[in-house]
């Protein structure tokens, strides 16, 4: 394949479910996994005479998302009806936004696979209601419809066709998800359907400015599959063009099992949705004060958080990157910092979070937010390390124990006998024994070999079964043997 001859042009349409308590136009609960058709009412089942009333919190979350994505927030907004028939669409139309979306143009900044900073434009992000879910039970000619999802608030975020590679699409999605989770707009959990993505892709000769004919890919259930499906589709389009054919505008579906895309419907079958303003929901003003208040309450975004960690907490950049990669870790760390006494060791806590706690969560396959270990307890453990009560190695054990039970750190240290020997008299005897037993090493050290000292400290640690305070052991050894190369 002549990869350099063609350039791909990718745009993504992402639907996120907004984390509201209730649906977009009625009071039914917005929850995942309830029994079929239990969260429904006359409005979201489209009973005759039922009327929609906009959920103010959904609007607030939409604006919040817009602010997190740097979108121009509309001063006036309205809803339109998108007309089509399907059994899971109770009213025969979907309430969406065509002409005056809540959020206009914005942008998303991220670093691509080549390490370059990319700024991808966002065309719009509008509110709309979700449809229900149609199920086709095996061996049954009938279909079942669950309307629990009908009316759940969605934000559709449409990117400009600014992405150039499948890897960029992956990174765009990762950054989009990160910002929306930071803004607490949505959980963006693809497995639970709270984030869905369709991809548009076309190819053109490298350097051309005109857009080629695009296809739309649906049924993408993970970011990895978005990346894979795009790679396959680009390959397919390139082959079509290189064989002298032309790409047909159509909607394709990703067959994960077969690692390929296939035609779902062609453009000729595309529907005319006959959009028009919903007369049940008059156009309204989004007052500046209201938007300002939402902006003021916007949670700290990842870039700002990272700068704060590095700038005012003195955390190394690499550690700050790990901490801010996901909202849950950053917020967990923020809770640690809040629990830290004045002048406390933020860096030590950061290292413990990235080095131990995240691994603990990872091992259990849960979010850091779901650990039994609390930020306050971790701060206590780091304090025990700093004052020499326990070693860093022992701290790992304590942290694991804390996550398994309800003990206080001091209790765990006591129960497992993890307290370090930090008493000079107690440790002095052991140090003397090690010096006596390892004549050769002592000689090396005296001969100027610095590494020999480490071996001697190791000897002390071994003799005390790890309980010795290594710092103190080192000091005592130096005091007794004199400086290196003496």
């Amino acid at each position: 394949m002549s990869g350099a001859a063609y350039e791909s042009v990718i745009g993504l349409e992402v639907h996120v479910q907004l984390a509201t308590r209730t649906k977009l136009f009625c009071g039914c609960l917005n929850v995942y996994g309830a029994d079929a058709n239990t969260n429904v009412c006359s409005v979201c089942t489209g009973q005759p005479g039922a009327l929609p009333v906009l959920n103010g919190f959904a609007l607030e979350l939409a604006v919040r998302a817009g602010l997190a994505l740097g979108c121009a927030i509309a001063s006036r907004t309205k809803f339109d009806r998108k007309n089509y028939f399907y059994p899971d669409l109770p009213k025969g139309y979907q309430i969406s936004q065509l002409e005056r979306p809540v959020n206009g143009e914005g942008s998303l900044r991220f670093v691509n696979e080549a390490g370059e900073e990319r700024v991808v434009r966002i065309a719009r992000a509008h509110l709309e209601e979700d449809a229900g879910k149609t199920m086709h039970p095996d061996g049954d000619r009938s279909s079942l419809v669950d309307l629990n999802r009908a009316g759940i608030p969605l934000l559709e975020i449409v990117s400009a066709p600014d992405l150039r590679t499948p890897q960029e699409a992956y990174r765009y999605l990762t950054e989009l998800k990160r910002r929306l989770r930071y803004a607490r707009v949505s959980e963006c959990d693809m497995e639970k359907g709270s984030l869905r993505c369709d991809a548009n892709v076309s190819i053109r000769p490298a350097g051309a400015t005109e857009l080629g004919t695009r296809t739309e890919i649906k049924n993408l259930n993970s970011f990895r599959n978005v990346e894979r499906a795009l790679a396959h589709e680009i390959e397919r389009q390139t082959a079509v063009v290189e064989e002298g054919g032309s790409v047909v505008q159509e909607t394709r579906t990703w067959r994960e099992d077969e690692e390929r895309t296939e035609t779902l419907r062609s453009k000729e079958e595309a529907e005319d949705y006959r959009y028009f303003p919903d007369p049940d929901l008059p156009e309204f003003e989004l007052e500046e004060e209201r938007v300002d208040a939402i902006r003021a309450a916007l949670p700290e975004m990842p870039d700002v958080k990272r700068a704060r960690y590095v700038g005012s907490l003195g955390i190394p950049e690499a550690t700050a990157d790990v901490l801010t990669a996901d909202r849950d870790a950053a917020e967990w760390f923020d809770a640690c910092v809040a629990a830290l006494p004045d002048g406390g060791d933020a860096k030590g806590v950061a290292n413990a979070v990235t080095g131990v706690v995240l691994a603990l969560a990872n091992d259990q396959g849960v979010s850091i937010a779901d650990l039994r270990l609390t930020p306050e307890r971790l701060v206590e453990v780091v304090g025990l390390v700093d004052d020499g009560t326990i070693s860093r190695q022992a701290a790992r054990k304590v942290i694991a124990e804390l996550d398994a039970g309800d003990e206080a750190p001091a209790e765990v240290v006591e129960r497992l006998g993890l307290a370090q020997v930090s008493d000079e008299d107690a440790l002095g005897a052991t140090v003397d024994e090690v010096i006596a037993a390892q004549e050769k090493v002592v000689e090396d050290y005296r001969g100027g070999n610095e590494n020999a000292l480490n071996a001697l400290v190791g000897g002390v640690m071994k003799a005390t079964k790890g309980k010795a305070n290594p710092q103190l052991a080192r000091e005592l050894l130096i005091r007794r043997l004199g400086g290196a190369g003496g």
Partner: protein
Amino acid sequence: MSGPSPAFRSAVALRDDALAGKLRVAEIVEETLARVARTEPTIDAFLHVDADGARARAEELDRRVAAGEASGRLFGVPIAVKDNICTRSMPTTCGSRMLEGYLPPYDAHVVERLLAEGAVLIGKTNCDEFGMGSSTENSAFKPTRNPHDPTRVPGGSSGGSAAAVAAGVVPLALGTDTGGSIRQPASLCGVVGFKPTYGAVSRRGLVAFASSLDQIGPFGASVLDVAHLASALAGHDPHDSTSAAFEPPDYASLLSRSVDGLRLGVHEDFLEKIKDAGVKERLRAAVRQLRDAGARIVRLDDLDFLTRVGIPTYYLVATAEASANLARYDGMRYGPREEAADLAATYARTRGARFGDEVRRRILLGTFALRAGHKDAYYERACKVRRLVQRAFAAAFERVDLMIGGTSPVAAFPLGRNVTDPVTMYRCDALTVPASLAGLPAASVPCGRTAEGLPVGLQILGPPRADAEVLSCASAFEQLSGRFGDLAPLAVEAAAEGDDA
């Protein structure tokens, strides 16, 4: 029993007697049901009569009287409800086979208000299917007949409600008005009908035909009764986003006896250009009466386009909205389903078999008006013209307090005459759609009869939120004309029989 029989008396009198314990609600209900039984074979005003429900309700209300806990603006008053307004106690079919047997899971906001005010729901009245029509002949179940002449239509689409009041069956009824569906049947049946300002009355539970035009309103034999019901219906409802955020005053207490100094605008399209001589004569006489009583009649010459653009604009906006509003009737969740081989065929069969001709005609028209490539020329252009209509009215109301004219260019016409000619039928709405497009309050009050004995209605229009002023002028005119409830001979006969009993 002495005096006129209960159902023939005004709603206010019935309520006062019921509250005072002079008349048991049970008696009112029995008399009403007896009247239903006597008139229905001739006029067919009802699609459903809830005798058991009404009797149970009467018992409950009588217990309240006995316990000294009776109250309510409409206490003990029997009321009929148009069948496109949701009632959980009675089927709501909208006159359509599509909703045959449909029992809503909730009461419309206005029904909640009626019940809170102590009213007794008697039944659901016949209407053109989904409110689409001007004669009630588009009901999928049966036509309703005009009590003044059972060979003629009662008007529509709220023909059942107008006829039930005109026949003296109930003192009050609810109708809905999208392009004239309260005012035109009120005019043809000789009763008072009132379309409130758009947004004054919640639409929650009104089965939508054209959401930006639909409005619920009262029918009654007198303006005072209508004002009481209008006040009971109006008020903000947070569950309707188009509900106006204003608390309307108590219309009944604001009714005036005088039109002295009132500036009343008249445009020739609403009067002199009416072709039916009998109708025009009654309207001219009404204007004279008002002038003689001190009203200043102001000729409005620059409103020609209201009637010229009214019909096409209205039919584009209303049908476009209807095409979406009626999309939910697909046989999937409620209502009957016509099974077919696949999904598309099931939709087509269900909607093809269950919707009547006029409804399908309007859905097609509206679907066309919204189609890509046609939307600019039809739907969007109609919306622009609609704004011009609103502006023209606003300008007119700088010069006059209210406008008066005919409600319908014709009196009640014989059944079957216009059924096959939709355009002639649409023209029946020429004088009522302009106010609908602008969301104005408008009433129709009886102003006499033609030589054939057919009622004629005077239409009174006001600027938005001038509901009280419109009703007040209607009341003053009612005093001048001396017509309190221009009820049908049928009703009078029925009353006489009732008295004999």
